[in-house]
């Protein structure tokens, strides 16, 4: 720190990160990949006249070189017009989540048997052609210190199991994906039903027909509604996009963006969820915040710099993929809070429409305010009943319209682990929602 300040840096941040991880992939009951590794790096970020420099050291001995390189980079990026005062709050503390049975202490043989059991369950279901079960666990120890006095330590164990199941019958092949994960030990995935759920959905999809294209009234299941809110609102509420005039939500704070019954929050502090943490990658203490409250836009997500420039408290949303990358403004666990409708009430209200289920992925163009999310499939609703099974379909919407079109929110909130990409960095997140009923979204079926 002192060497960096002597060079003339306005701010210095060191992030030491050690990661132990295991990757196991079982295909049709055969181990196709069993890999484990150990990684350690210290990233050095410096700020000089509004410009950031970033470099990475392999060890404490290399810190001096990395510091000089980082400062050289900061000087190159510096620009007096973008200089800002560095007076962020500092944070101190520690956080540890290892779970009941830390995953890295569990023998490989036991992890393998969990995967094999999943394969066995899925492959016993008639019509299943190919099973792919994947386990990733990691133990990440992070320490962040900065020149304003922040010193935080975090030790987090993350586990995720996923199943990707293919079913085949009479020349038709369909697939379904299911995953479960969170912060904690191996207990998170023991007894999971991911393979069974994915297998049943893949088999069910064999009789599916293309969704009718065009505008429909629809019910979105919690998986899909979670991705919908992540893409529709979460990205547009990232403060860097707002600050850079790249979000349709810029200038919308305090304005109505949806029905009064809608609350959307981002909360990294929920115990055990896949996108949870106590301190972000700048060392800022994480907290719950509302993006939308009572249908009104009420918050942006920020890192230290963006919070300063937007004049709001840091929200603890600075996250990086790993030690090789500087932190960016990212979501954590983002979800629509529960309402008071039952699924049956929604079905009878919709009468004619689509029940869209399962999420494959989504993306957004926050500048234009349009987004897309892809449903694994769905059901055609006729006379308030689920009739025909539908195939995979893309659904599109406009950020400033969709929340006004949410007509009902279900009673039961559920969460789903995922991975979110931005600027080539992927971070673990959780999406979540109850069932929601939406009018006027566009299905892109054939």
């Amino acid at each position, binding site marked *: 720190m002192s060497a960096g300040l002597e060079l003339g840096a306005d701010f210095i941040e060191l992030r030491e990160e050690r990661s132990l991880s295991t990757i196991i992939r079982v295909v049709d009951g055969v181990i196709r990949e069993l890999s484990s590794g*150990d990684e350690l790096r210290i990233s050095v970020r410096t700020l000089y006249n509004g410009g950031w420099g*970033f470099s990475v050291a392999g060890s404490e001995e290399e810190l001096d070189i990395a510091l000089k390189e980082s400062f050289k980079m900061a000087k190159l990026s510096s620009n007096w017009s973008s200089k800002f005062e560095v007076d962020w709050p500092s944070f101190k503390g520690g956080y540890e989540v290892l779970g009941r049975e830390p995953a890295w202490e569990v023998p490989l043989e036991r992890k393998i048997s969990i995967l094999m059991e999943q394969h066995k369950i899925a492959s016993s279901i008639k019509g299943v052609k190919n099973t792919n079960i994947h386990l990733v666990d990691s133990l990440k120890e992070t320490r962040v210190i900065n020149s304003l006095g922040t010193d935080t330590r975090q030790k987090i164990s993350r586990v995720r199991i996923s199943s990707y199941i293919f079913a085949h019958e009479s020349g038709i092949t369909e697939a379904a994906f299911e995953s479960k994960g969170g912060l904690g030990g191996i207990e998170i995935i023991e007894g999971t039903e991911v393979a069974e759920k994915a297998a049943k959905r893949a088999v069910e999809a064999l009789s599916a027909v293309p969704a009718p294209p065009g505008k429909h009234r629809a019910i979105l299941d919690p998986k899909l509604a979670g991705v919908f809110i992540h893409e529709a609102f979460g990205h547009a509420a990232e403060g860097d996009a707002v600050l850079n005039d790249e979000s349709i939500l810029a200038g919308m704070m305090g304005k109505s963006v949806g029905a009064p019954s809608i609350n959307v929050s981002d909360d990294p502090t929920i115990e055990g969820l896949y996108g949870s943490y106590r301190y972000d990658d700048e060392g800022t203490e994480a907290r719950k915040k509302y993006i939308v409250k009572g249908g009104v836009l009420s918050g942006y997500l920020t890192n230290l710099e963006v919070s300063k420039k937007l004049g709001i408290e840091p929200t603890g949303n600075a996250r990086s993929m790993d030690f090789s990358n500087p932190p960016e403004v990212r979501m954590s666990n983002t979800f629509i809070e529960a309402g008071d409708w039952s699924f049956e009430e929604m079905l009878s209200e919709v009468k004619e429409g689509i029940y869209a289920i399962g999420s494959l992925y989504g993306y957004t163009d926050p500048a234009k305010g349009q987004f897309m999310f892809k449903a694994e499939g769905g059901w055609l609703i006729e006379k308030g009943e689920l009739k025909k099974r539908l195939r*995979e379909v893309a659904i599109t919407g406009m950020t400033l319209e969709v929340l006004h079109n949410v007509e009902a929110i279900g009673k039961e909130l559920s969460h789903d682990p995922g991975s979110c990409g931005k600027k080539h960095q992927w971070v673990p997140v959780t999406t979540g929602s109850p069932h929601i009923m939406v009018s006027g979204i566009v299905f892109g079926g054939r």
Partner: protein
Amino acid sequence: MLVEEAVRSAIRNGAEEAEGFEISMRRISLSVEKGILKTASSTRETGLGVRAVIGKKLGIAFATNPLDGHFVGKRAFINAKASPEDPNFHSLPDPHEVAPLDCILDPKIRDAEVEDASSLFMESIEAAKISPSVVSVSGMFDLIYSEVSIFSSRGVDVKESRTSYHIFLEVSAKDGDRRGSGFNFSDGRKLDSLDPERLGREAGEIAIRSLDSMKIGVEELPVIFKPKSLPGIIPFIIDEAANAENLQYGRSFLTGRLSTQVAREEVSLIDDGRIPWLIGSSSFDDEGIPKSRTAVIDNGIFRSPIYNWYAAKRDGRESTGNASRDYKRAPSISANNVLLHAPKLEMSEDELMDVSRGILVLYTGDTPNLATGEFSGMAETAFLIERGEVKKSLRQTGIAFTIEDALKGLEGVGRDIEPAGSYYGGSIRIRARVSGPG
């Protein structure tokens, strides 16, 4: 050498075969926000991965730090010991004669200083500011110099230095209540193939042109995809659908279709890993097998999957040089550079655009469904065409078709050939279902 030390350690500990993959990388990375250089980063890193084999049992270990070959080799052996047998495993790859490919190392990238990168990038950023309505230009620019070494107990011993650049720009435009956005990207192995001014200007023009927008309803229309909208669609046919592993497990819609017609007879799709300066080119793949040219679809007939060593041996074939990996994982299979060859369907831009009503797609982030071959996605940057002229940009517009229908009904291929991701070809025109809220 680190990779040798790791392999010898695995063997010393009891592995019957072992293979090491080492990659060292120097990366200069620049990030611009709202037209101003925001972050510059310079990193040097090395990653090591080792595969160890005991009979038909395989284990992998990796590390970035501490880079202790002895430890990583031993860990790979321990993992192999813990693994059940894989009945389909044949062997680690045999050594092959590798003819070096000249055009993969650009000294300009290898020796670049961050100042050089910055001036080039800022030229692109400034070029995007074509109008006062352009309110923000953001982007990233990476220059990478890497050294890859593969060494195995079976005699593989190859190494190569490569360079690459990757640039991506996003432009936001605003005029009153009207919003527009544009983008552009380019990647390759030679810096001189990047025209920063043109790249930026085109991104700015797309953003301004998309200010005027409209919505359409559900229609069956001719759809013209420009090359930069195709990296997720055409290469997918080779990368995923003709990927030998996906075929062997029955995941792909092309399963059981070998030697059958899957495209118009005028259409060939070729994977070629030896085209000078393209991003997917190198002398050897990530198992040390020489890269080559594979006619995957030849005059409409599905002729060959793409293979890595494992999948090839399972089919009793030779690897096509399509192994791909990072140091943490087992090698998978991926396309190198995908060429669309259809000279009899070639059209000029005017001929391609000669439709009474259609859609011009500049970008979509979507890919087809592997199991069904159906594409259902969003035309993120698209324009309506009327009587051959480009009109307003389209909002909230979905496009749906099947890959087989697209390949069998391909109406034309543009002469505007350019590299876009792993795609190396021109625009295409097909018919598809278009759906919007209008």
